[in-house]
């Protein structure tokens, strides 16, 4: 059955809101147990076993990230970044084993200590249907500035 576009859009918007509002536990709950979360460094695609990534995390590593952010002593998020993003240009494909592949773009503004930073890029999600919603089995974020100096990407992307 082809995925319901409205349902997919709602899921991505919800994920964006959870990231914008630093709702760490709710965002973490979106991932499957075999999840992979990937933000390449220097280039848009490569073998992550042969090249360093900005983020290359399985579920336990994502949990470490969340534990840290919730600790109150993750100083790179003290004060927290104020974040607002727009998710758009959503394209939906059928993936394997009932998964849904979703391509999207985002524009994100992060304000911290009077400095506004802009990030933009493309995301690919592999969503696994579960009940009336989805879980994220895979998420890859291709930043247009992945080969530039980035001072602080410790909020959720």
């Amino acid at each position, binding site marked *: 059955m082809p995925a319901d576009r409205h349902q997919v859009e709602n899921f991505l918007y919800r994920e964006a809101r959870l990231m914008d509002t630093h709702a760490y536990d709710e965002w973490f709950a979106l991932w499957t147990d075999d999840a992979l979360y990937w*933000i390449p*460094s*220097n*280039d848009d695609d*490569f073998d*992550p*076993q*042969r*090249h*360093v*990534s*900005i*983020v*290359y995390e399985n579920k*336990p*590593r994502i949990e*470490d*990230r969340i*534990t*840290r952010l919730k*600790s109150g*002593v*993750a*100083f*790179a998020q*003290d004060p927290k970044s104020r974040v607002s993003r727009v998710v758009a240009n959503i394209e939906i494909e059928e993936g394997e084993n009932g998964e849904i592949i979703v391509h999207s773009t985002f524009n994100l503004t992060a304000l911290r*200590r009077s*400095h506004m930073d802009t990030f933009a890029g493309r995301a690919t999600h592999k969503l696994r249907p579960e009940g009336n919603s989805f879980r994220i089995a895979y998420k890859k974020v291709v930043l247009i500035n992945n*080969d*530039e*100096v*980035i*001072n*602080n*990407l*410790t909020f959720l*992307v």
Partner: protein
Amino acid sequence: MKKQSVIDYNEFVKEDRIHGRVYTDPQIYEEELENIFHRGWVYVGHASEIPTPGDFRLRRMGRQTVIMVRDEDGQVQLLLNRCTHRANAVCQVERGNTNAFRCAYHGWSFGTNGELKGVSYRDRYPASFQKADYNLRKVPRVGIYRGFVFGSLSPVGLSLDDHLGPRVKEQIDLVVDLSPVGELDVTAGVHKYGYRANWKFQIENSMDGYHPNFVHQTFFTNIQHRTGRKLTDLFTSSSPAQTRDFGNGYVMLDFRPYNNAKSSLWRAVNPEVRQKEPYIEAMITRYGTERATELLTTAGTHILVFPNLVLIGVQIRVIQPIKVDETEVFLYPTFLQGVPEEVNVARLRGHESFYGPAGGGATDDLEMFERNQMGLRSQVDPWLLLARGLGQETQDEDGTLVGQVTDEVTQRGIWRQWKKMMTQGTDVPARRRGNGTARQVAQ
């Protein structure tokens, strides 16, 4: 001779304290670029980044951009990125492979060894024009140790070999000889991040054994949760780990006494690596049991090669000043040649967990540097204190100063070298005109 500074640096660097102006004064910053980055030895890159003739990387020495390129004869060259005609930058991209650097402005082209190959419409130059006078200018001195490529923009001065000395080379060996074929492979890309504060905060912090239990508690908590390993006792004031100052601004955190006390054999092999045996066997075959044990237990080093190179574990860290209150930091996780792929993948994943712009450790350091720079605006008392362990140091036979790991032996060593270079110009006279090509390769 060195231009006389109107700044009396002795007033700013005392034995047990430094004045905040060393981090905030734009004039001091300009003099640092000239006296430290444009004269002394500066790390540029690793030879394994450019294995094939024509491979190049665009790098900086202070504010000057240089092309690190392997020429057609296989030699590593450091060429200034500036056309000898009208100063256009001849290389636009950070990495690649080429058989020539061609200036787009008027069409001059240069070989990978810098030689001027082609001059467009040459007939209108006077008869005295000699192509050989207009090769790309070279970094006057190039020194290489175990693939680590250093340059000096001064044509004269101590050789790299003499400057590093046996103790620093010994530390570099600990990093490179974790490979059973004795070769690093710096091909895994780079993390690039920065911060809005002075560059010296990063080199000092890299050698600060006092901060980890405070700044990095989230990291240690996660490690303990995942592995049961408690790392915090490494950085207490009762830890057997040490600080060392070898002179010349070469300082380190020495974890060996801690590792030996813990009998933490094979630290270099990540516990998650399943195929340890082939690697360990290859190490013993190459180095013998004693040296292999030392290498695997020590697992690299934790050293500052003043002013811009830090070696920590698997990582090459390069510190690049941008402005008095802006800095960039490039981190290159390294691979070992001749090991099972799993070992190198574990090096990558370990690096990513702490480092990079989204990492769970170093980003908190950057935050500390920015808080430092903010704090410096308050100047009723302008001094920063560096007195930990002062007067309690011991001395190795070769003069190396040794303190406890939370002592500021390392910071004092950095500032001693900084003051020396800012006041005496060390052994290195001011840059001269010319296209020096002296090359020396350290042992």
